[in-house]
């Protein structure tokens, strides 16, 4: 059985803003999944709905099965127990996610004391171990968030997420706003932790190359839907959806003559999340669109082993249509 199974997840904000439209995926224990997409694609909404952290204006339907239990229907007591101890989140922007007037030690200890039947002494010991495991010297336990650098704050966030030994970590843009070197340090830390403790991870980012570096599989979201999903290697080497292709060429490979003095972008803006359009939602911005794209509705079709794409061109009948 999969650790996490999401089936037909829909999230609507307010009356008519459909942020997530029918997202399904599953994640096995110890596996890592990267979710990519631009602002407004619904990727953070998916992440937050996995632990029911959305604001009350959001209406959610579908199933989110974590270890076989439906997160969306469980009672508040059970939900509180699941948060932190079965699945935890590393939020983006560690400065705003940490409490500025409490020491990092107190903040890491808090979930341990709340969720595990341990005394303050054991919690202190565990806090020191956690700080050590994320590469922050344990003597900094009495430091306040503003006394740490951005990279160290993000490490503290990761230590908090690990505090109750969850089976799943959801990392929402964990390295955005960090420098390249610090980003590389954080990514290698996450990769090591996942490998050593057999934790599953869902990582969210707009940078496909970052996700490909750390995750086994990738899902690309556009306008509230997954438009392509597959192993990281395949998705980067031969994307089957034009949007995946655009995202992966946005961050150039140094040394690649094709991108030298030729930045690659994607004109236009994503569709209004209030509209229900016919045909492929990516069609207005798609550099490879053809006539049927504006009328033929799309869904995730098989596109190779362990691979699905919501582009008409993966269907045998349309394979050559744009040529």
């Amino acid at each position, binding site marked *: 059985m999969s650790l996490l199974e999401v089936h037909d997840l829909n999230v609507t904000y307010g009356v008519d803003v459909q942020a997530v439209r029918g997202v399904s995926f599953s994640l096995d224990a110890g596996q890592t999944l990267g979710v990519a997409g*631009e*602002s407004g694609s619904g990727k953070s909404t998916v992440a937050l709905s996995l632990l029911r952290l959305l604001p009350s204006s959001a209406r959610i339907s579908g199933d989110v099965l974590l270890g076989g239990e439906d997160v969306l229907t469980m009672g508040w007591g059970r939900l509180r127990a699941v948060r932190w101890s079965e699945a935890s989140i590393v939020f983006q922007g560690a400065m705003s996610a940490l409490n500025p007037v409490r020491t990092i030690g107190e903040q890491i200890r808090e979930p341990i004391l709340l969720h595990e039947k341990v005394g303050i002494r054991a919690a202190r010991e565990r806090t020191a171990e956690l700080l050590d495991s994320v590469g922050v010297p344990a003597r900094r336990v009495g430091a306040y968030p503003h006394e740490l*650098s*951005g*990279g*160290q704050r993000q490490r503290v966030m990761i230590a908090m997420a690990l505090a109750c030994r969850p089976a799943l970590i959801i990392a929402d843009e964990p390295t955005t*706003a960090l*420098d*390249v*070197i*610090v*980003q*590389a*340090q954080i*990514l*290698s830390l996450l990769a090591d932790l996942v490998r050593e403790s057999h934790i599953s991870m869902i990582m969210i980012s*707009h*940078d*496909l*190359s*970052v996700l*490909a*570096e750390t995750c086994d599989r990738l899902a690309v979201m556009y306008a509230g839907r997954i438009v392509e999903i597959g192993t990281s290697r395949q998705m*980067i080497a031969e994307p089957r959806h034009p949007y995946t292709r*655009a*995202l992966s*060429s*946005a*961050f*150039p*490979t*140094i*040394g*690649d003559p094709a*991108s*030298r*003095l*030729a*930045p*690659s*972008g*994607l*004109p236009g*803006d994503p569709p209004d999340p209030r509209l229900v359009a016919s045909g492929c939602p990516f069609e207005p911005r798609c550099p490879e669109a053809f006539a049927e794209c504006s009328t033929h509705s799309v869904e995730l079709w098989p596109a190779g082993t362990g691979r699905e794409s919501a582009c008409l061109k993966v269907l045998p009948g349309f394979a050559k249509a744009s040529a």
Partner: protein
Amino acid sequence: MTSPALEARDLEVTFPPRRGRGPARAVDGVNLTVGAGEIVALIGESGCGKSTLARALVGLIRPTAGEVRYQGTTLGYSSKALKQFRRHTQLVLQDPGGALNPKQNVFDAVAEGPRLHGLRSGLPERVHDALARAGLRPPEQFVNRYPHELSGGQQQRVVIAGALALDPSVIVADEPVASLDASVRGEILRLILDLRGSLGLSALVVSHDLGLAWNIADRVAVMYLGRIVEQGTVEEVLLRPKHPYTQALISVLPGTDAESVLLRGEPPDPTAVPGGCRFHPRCQRFAALDASDDRRTLCTGRDLPVLDADRPGVACHLADAPTHEERRESSDIS
């Protein structure tokens, strides 16, 4: 030869001591030129002094020593001289959401510069023209909108239009795409390239992103703790990096096959610049030297000269195989 559009000569910016710490040497001796019609990328980590250097180059910070030159003329710091200079050199900041006034519509945001400079005649044409050049077409559709009604990419275009409205010859862009989505990033970078093509604009683009340099720059300068440690053409520096710091930056880029060099620690503190080579406490090549290697004393003991602006250079004692003379000198030190 025409003089460079913008130039830093032995520039130093030192911030006064605070809370028991020494003075912060944010920019500690920099020579840098941006030629006419040239795009130069200034690359470095947070805290390396790159934003301070950018601000000094547009006259927002008065350097402690050295000078800024615009088309060969030394910048004066009287308010009249600064005002004149700022028409020609415009700063584009990161995070357009923060740079735009939420209560000001697009027209007023773009017209603010021309109004301050007393360019009142033909103002609507000037604003429309700047918007169109920044890729907001047709301009009539945008002038009455407010920042919250625009996407991140459109907001950044408004900020760029505000800079273009004064017909500058140089723009200094501080992390122009850091807060933008992957898909928008390329669009804004292409705009900077197009402006160079159509208006002959020179640009200094400050970033921590080496891919950006590969995408748009002619030359690149890598900054570490207040100094340029390596500079040259993009091809030279990014494909054949000589400085261990540049090599480490390139090795950690996602998608590179090379073994990553994970530097330990974070950028050190400009209030306590290490002696000798300022990079040696984090340097992978220094760490790999034998304890008996006499070059260690060079790295820890001898300061490196400030690089010249007009030719490629590397500030590293170990970048090239040491010459016989260097060997002898280093044994003299020990």
